[in-house]
């Protein structure tokens, strides 16, 4: 694997505010990398700096080791798929797709015959062969996005950039297009850099995910890393449903690692506990699906007692919002099977397998900054 694109300490300032601060990462050739974050996290600005649509205030963008930080947009070997599709409304579907290739005629790099066959081939790829002569406004949202995809891919760029490409599609069309993108990536073996605020989309499509918040890169890793080994509370909270709790490490030789929570509650933890000293303040994460709930009949000394304050039906599973009676602590649990039959207001005992109680790394503790 070789690095195709590298961002080095990218920074973008708009007036007083920093949209992106010191973001660095490397993208491998052929990789599907997602930039994931809420709106205002700096993910789109980062992508636009790679595309050349924004010039970084500081930092460098490298393409195959060459500095392209201030290279003109048109000279960069990458194509972008826009959220609003950005199709040329004065051109037909065919002309839209052929646009990038036709520019090369003037530069003597391609013949008309080649354009014809390539455009036809890519319209086939996105299943729009029958719509070649239509105008963009005659197409549905999903079809327009396919045109914009074909327009980007037809010039055979090594890198394709996506700026929330499915953001303006309805939920069903989005699912269809996700599969399509995954297939295209597998078949074409191009590098995809994909901006999205939808964590499921990012986790499902990508080889690696970069989580951004407030213009900073919080974590870059495989979906598995991000999900099970988040670098900090912010990532843990952002991805999936997780309980992130503050406590104090209770390390007694010969006994399992424990975390003392407020109100005398105690959880045992087993994940990532090496090197944590007794009495140290720690942040732990317990995913909602690893948070067990048992009906609290009779005596249950071992767990936390809580009450179900909300019950959401998710299909095969049920999501409970819980309130720990003793301290008012709020927890989320996702349960299935027998545990899914509890009702609103039921008293439950919360259980947690120590292997799933993860101590979050100290180094990247949540930033306290305005």
């Amino acid at each position: 694997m070789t690095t195709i694109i590298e961002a080095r300490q990218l920074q973008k300032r708009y007036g007083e505010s920093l949209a992106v601060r010191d973001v660095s990462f490397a993208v491998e050739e052929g990789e599907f990398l997602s930039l994931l974050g809420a709106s205002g996290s700096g993910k789109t600005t980062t992508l636009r700096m790679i595309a050349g649509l924004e010039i970084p205030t500081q930092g460098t963008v490298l393409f195959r080791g060459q500095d392209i930080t201030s290279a003109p947009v048109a000279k960069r070997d990458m194509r972008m798929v826009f959220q609003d599709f950005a199709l040329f409304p004065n051109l037909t579907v065919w002309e839209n797709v052929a646009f990038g290739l036709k520019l090369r005629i003037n530069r003597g790099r391609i013949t008309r015959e080649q354009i014809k066959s390539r455009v036809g081939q890519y319209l086939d790829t996105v299943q729009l062969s029958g719509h070649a002569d239509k105008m963009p406004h005659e197409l549905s949202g999903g079809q327009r996005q396919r045109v914009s995809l074909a327009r980007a891919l037809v010039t055979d760029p090594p890198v394709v950039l996506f700026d929330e490409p499915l953001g303006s599609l309805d939920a069903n069309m989005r699912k269809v297009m996700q599969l399509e993108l995954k297939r295209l990536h597998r078949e074409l073996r191009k590098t995809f850099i994909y901006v999205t605020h939808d964590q499921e989309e990012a986790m499902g499509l990508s080889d690696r995910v970069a989580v951004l918040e407030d213009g900073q890169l919080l974590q870059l890793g495989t979906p598995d890393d991000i999900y099970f080994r988040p670098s900090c509370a912010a990532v843990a909270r952002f991805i999936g449903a997780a309980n992130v709790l503050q406590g104090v490490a209770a390390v007694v030789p010969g006994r399992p690692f424990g975390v003392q929570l407020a109100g005398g509650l105690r959880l045992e933890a087993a994940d990532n506990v090496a090197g944590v000293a007794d009495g140290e303040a720690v942040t732990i994460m317990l995913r909602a699906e690893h948070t067990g709930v048992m009906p609290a009949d009779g005596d249950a000394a071992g767990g936390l007692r809580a009450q179900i304050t909300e019950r959401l039906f998710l299909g095969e599973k049920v999501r409970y919002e819980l309130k720990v009676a003793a301290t008012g602590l709020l927890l989320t649990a996702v349960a299935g099977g027998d545990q899914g039959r509890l009702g609103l207001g039921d008293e439950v005992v919360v259980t947690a397998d120590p292997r799933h109680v993860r101590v979050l790394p100290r180094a990247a503790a949540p930033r306290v900054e305005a």
Partner: protein
Amino acid sequence: MSAAPGTAGSVGPVVPGGPSGADGSGAAGRGRRQLMIWLVPPLLWFTVFMLIPYCMLFYYSLGSTEYMTFKPGFSLANLGRVFCEEPYLSVLLKSARIGAFTAIGATILAYPVAFCLAFHTRSARAKLLIYLLVIVPWWAAYLVKAYAWKTILGTNGIINALLLELHLIHEPLTLILYNQFSVILTLIYIFTPFSILSIYAQLERIPTSIVEASSNLGATTFETLTKIIIPLSLPGVLAGAIITFALATGDFIAPALVGGPDAVMISNVVINLLGVAFDWPMAASIGIVVIGVGTALISVSQYLEHRAQARF
């Protein structure tokens, strides 16, 4: 409905929201009656100041003149004279030519300004400033602005004074005032803002992402301009050009103030027919022809605009 549609047009004592009859006319009927009341003033205005004058114009054009007095009649002879008798047709054509030059000149000047305003002015304050600079001259009376050109181009005007001072000429230039050139120059100055706003409004509709997509696909700025931006802005260009052409062709003040005998335009001819020759039927016939040509032009341009208007 308590009121029959036929009576709704008359200005009867219709009380909005009044007690509705027993025939079940509800909120919809009331809403419609209220709408009618709102429509009465503009309809009246349109009737009194536009419809009736058009009819009168047509009526006068059919009559004839005897001993400088109007005589009603029913003849198309005057309309025929517009096309056959000198100087009407040639003045009409000359006016159209001046109008066309004005429209072309105004478009050429307006396009770069509108383009900068739409794509290269990022700060809202700068945008507002340029916008104001474009509009502010309209606050001054047209007559004053046309007169200003007289003082710029005149024998004792600013240009001649400057050239004399620099010893580039020894006697004042007379070529720059009282001819078609000075009329076109003045008209371009007056009407360019129309073109700017018309083109700008169209350019503003073009999403930035389309321009970005074009350069992302490898197009140079020039290619983006010729292949995307100009085609997409054509409806605005066309609309601006038609307005400018129509206003310039029918202009009276510029030829009267800065135009010489060579730059007599159709409005000046009409004024003379009305005020000097008292040939009202002839004046009305010219009016009919001008209105007819104008309507035809606007229809054609609207058709073209509609066809060229890309849907975003």
